[in-house]
């Protein structure tokens, strides 16, 4: 007995010693945990658990389950197929739409532990295998490649009988990228991918899912290289070219639309003459006296204003060139010193364009540089006379040929008033202000128009300081009134004249029968108080003579019977030699044939011994300056 006691004590001491030296403690196993159960095809399923601490002792795990509707407890038969800590339920043990109550029991030498039960319905734990046989091919769609991916469902899943319905999902990315592009495919097993990068390497994966279940794992990578179908560099260049071409087109279209405005900006037109202090509105209203009063100069003889006929007349030589063009010339002498150069500077108070003097005096010879000066003055003044009907067309630059001085376009009858340089000019400008540009008179009888038209009716192209600065070509100034047609025609002629070097086609204007003569003489005065002119044959040489004021008669004035008083040649010469500015006020230098609609009497030239031409018809030349209506007084 003593030995037995000693043996048992020794045994326990040894055991305790062993336990102490090993540092371990044995205990009941820890509670296992059922992690998940999955079915790959809705016919079998597997459950896995996580073991707890084993308590230091060998522990065994057993899975028990109960099926819905029966209390019978079953035990798992297959612990190996699913790997460690798993239980595989085969087809016979698997029932769909049946609730399973599963429990895992861990047992060791010291005890056992039960896991929490897990309730599952196999229908809702289906996680299929990934799709198989993923193939990606490169197809061509009119030169543009695309990828076609095709695959098969996992072999275990029975989709053919309709037992499982799978939907697929595809993802693709470039090899070097990190982000995937996911495409939901649906139930089909083929999918096309467009919008590929040239010479790119793509990686494609696919996965599937049943109606109510879990997504499968992604399949294996499939790599595909897209061929080089469109060189990127070239495409960029093409894009750049196309874009720039469009921009260019748009810009040019804009330019074209705004060409006129641009021209105005870049080459501003030379403004026409304008009389300082001249009130246009007042003038329009008819009270010329008041209008001109502002221009009045104290020391200027006023008696000229008392009479409305105190108009400065400037004779203008009318040439009817061979080409049936009417040419008007102005006497050189009238404008000595008072005229500006042809390229006169625009005056400061540039207003509208000059008077619409269609009585353009065209100088073919180009010798009339002097007279051009006067023309500029006249024009400028005449412009001021015009009402707002003046169509100030911004003339484009004259062709270089023109500026050479070959062409001279004489304005309507203008008193050769200079610019506002001298005080004397002001008065004279007054006179001019009264004048209106009427060029109709220059036309042959067919084209005569009554001069009742208000001032400025012949607002043809204005002539700025440069007569030749009018619209040669295609531009037709705005015609304010019907009568302007006539003026147009005249102008067209002058255009032709000016464009001696240029074959500018006049507008299809009807002109009288071509006459070789260049001058027009007053034939008669018709009922409408229009001067009927007819061209008179003359030599071309006479043109120059006329310019010098030799062969034309200056209209002195209009008497009470509305008769043109024309001065004799000698008298005119004298007058012409005088400064037109001063004498204009005396009306001696009023070298214009006023076509008075009302019995207005322009002051006759007190100057030399004129022989007023009482006849209605003048033998010889009548420098019928551009007629213009008298301002109504």
């Amino acid at each position: 007995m003593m030995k037995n006691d000693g043996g048992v004590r020794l045994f326990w001491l040894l055991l305790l010693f062993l336990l102490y030296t090993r540092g371990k403690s044995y205990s009941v196993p820890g509670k296992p945990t059922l992690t998940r159960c999955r079915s790959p095809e809705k016919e079998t399923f597997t459950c896995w658990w996580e073991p707890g601490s084993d308590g230091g002792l060998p522990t065994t795990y057993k899975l028990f389950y109960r099926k819905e509707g029966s209390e019978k407890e079953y035990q798992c038969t297959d612990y190996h197929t699913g790997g460690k800590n798993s239980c595989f339920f085969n087809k016979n043990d698997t029932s769909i739409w049946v609730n399973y109550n599963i429990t895992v029991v861990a047992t060791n030498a010291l005890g056992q532990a039960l896991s929490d039960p897990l309730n599952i319905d196999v229908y809702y734990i289906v996680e299929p295998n990934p799709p198989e046989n993923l193939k990606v091919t490169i197809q061509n769609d009119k030169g543009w490649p695309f990828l076609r991916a095709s695959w098969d469902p996992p072999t275990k899943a029975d989709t053919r009988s309709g037992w499982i319905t799978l939907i697929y999902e595809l993802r693709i990315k470039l090899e070097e990228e990190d982000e995937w592009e996911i495409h939901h495919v649906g139930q089909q097993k083929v999918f096309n991918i467009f919008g590929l990068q040239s010479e790119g390497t793509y990686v494609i994966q696919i996965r599937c899912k049943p109606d109510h279940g879990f997504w499968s794992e992604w399949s294996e990578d499939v790599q595909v290289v897209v061929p080089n179908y469109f060189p990127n560099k070239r495409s960029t260049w093409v894009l750049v070219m196309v874009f720039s071409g469009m921009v260019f087109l748009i810009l040019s279209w804009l330019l074209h639309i705004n060409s006129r405005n641009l021209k105005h900006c870049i080459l501003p037109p030379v403004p026409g003459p304008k009389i300082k202090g001249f009130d246009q509105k007042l003038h329009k209203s008819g009270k010329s006296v008041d209008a001109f009063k502002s221009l009045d100069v104290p020391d200027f003889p006023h008696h000229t204003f008392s009479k409305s006929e105190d108009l400065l007349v400037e004779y203008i030589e009318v040439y009817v060139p061979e080409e049936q063009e009417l040419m008007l010339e102005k006497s050189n002498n009238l404008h000595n010193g008072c005229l500006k150069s042809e390229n006169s500077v625009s005056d400061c108070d540039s207003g509208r364009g000059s008077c619409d003097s269609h009585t353009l005096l065209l100088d073919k010879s180009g010798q009339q540089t002097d007279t051009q000066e006067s023309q500029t003055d006249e024009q400028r003044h005449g412009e001021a006379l015009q009402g707002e009907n003046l169509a100030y067309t911004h003339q484009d630059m004259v062709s270089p040929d023109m500026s050479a001085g070959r062409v001279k376009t004489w304005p309507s009858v203008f008193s050769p008033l200079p610019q506002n340089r001298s005080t004397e000019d002001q008065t004279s400008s007054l006179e001019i202000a009264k004048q209106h540009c009427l060029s109709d008179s220059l036309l042959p009888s067919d084209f005569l128009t009554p001069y009742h038209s208000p001032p400025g009716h012949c607002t043809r192209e204005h002539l700025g300081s440069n007569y030749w600065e009018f619209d040669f070509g295609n531009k037709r100034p705005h015609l304010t009134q019907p009568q302007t047609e006539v003026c147009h025609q005249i102008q067209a002629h002058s255009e032709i004249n000016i464009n001696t070097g240029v074959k500018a086609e006049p507008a299809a204007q009807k002109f009288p029968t071509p006459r070789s003569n260049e001058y027009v003489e007053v034939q008669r005065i018709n009922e409408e108080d229009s001067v009927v002119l007819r061209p008179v044959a003359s030599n071309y040489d006479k043109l120059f003579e006329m310019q010098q004021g030799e062969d034309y008669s200056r209209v002195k004035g209009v008497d009470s019977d509305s008769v043109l008083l024309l001065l004799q040649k000698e008298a005119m010469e004298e007058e012409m030699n005088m400064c037109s500015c001063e004498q204009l006020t005396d009306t001696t230098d009023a070298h214009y044939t006023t076509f008075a609609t009302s019995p207005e009497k322009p002051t006759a030239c007190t100057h030399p011994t004129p022989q007023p031409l009482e006849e209605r018809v003048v033998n010889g030349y009548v420098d019928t300056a551009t007629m213009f209506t008298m301002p109504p007084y």
Partner: protein
Amino acid sequence: MMLAACSVWLLLVCLVLYSRLKVAASAPTCTNGQAGCHVLSLANLFDRVIQHSARMHGISNDLHSEFELYFLPSKNQIGRVSRNCHTSTILTPNGKENAQRMAREELTEVILKLLVAWGDPLWHFHQSLAHNHEVSNFSSNKSLEMSDMVHELRKGVQKVIEKMKMLGIMGNSLGGLGSSESLLAPVSAEWRLMKDYDLLYCFRRDSSKIQNYLKILKCRIVPEHGC
């Protein structure tokens, strides 16, 4: 001229509408006994019915999840629930082999039985939800939709059966499927004792059964159209 143009335009519009109406009014019918046409129309019918059942199951699934969140029964009840389904008396195949072993007529009968069995219970379920103030209007509307769908699906399946009988695919052993009395007998009034959550649980399962059986039927009868 404007009037004329307007009238012409109106006339054209009317013509177009009329032609369209004609097309819409008359469904494509198979004439002269074209076999292919009939099969195609049967396949279409099946597809429609399957889609309908899928939608029904989806709604029941949503409602069940909602109930689980807000009206979670105690854990003790989880396992107990399934035994109380009033349709448990209907023998339904619980596996693929079992389902495939069943004749098409049997399978169809099962489907119909299930649909008939859930007609009334779902209506009452909706009524109880509507009067339950704790339940949102959204859920109540869903239950109503569910109830309607059951009836619609039943009519659809009956149409399919008629079509199959016409085509000779199915024999006439389906007897009194038209009358619901023969189908209702097994399932008496057990469902009235069930709680809402249990009803939902049971219906969710049964709707998935219906959908699955219909798919099996389709792939058995008209396999070449998307199986």
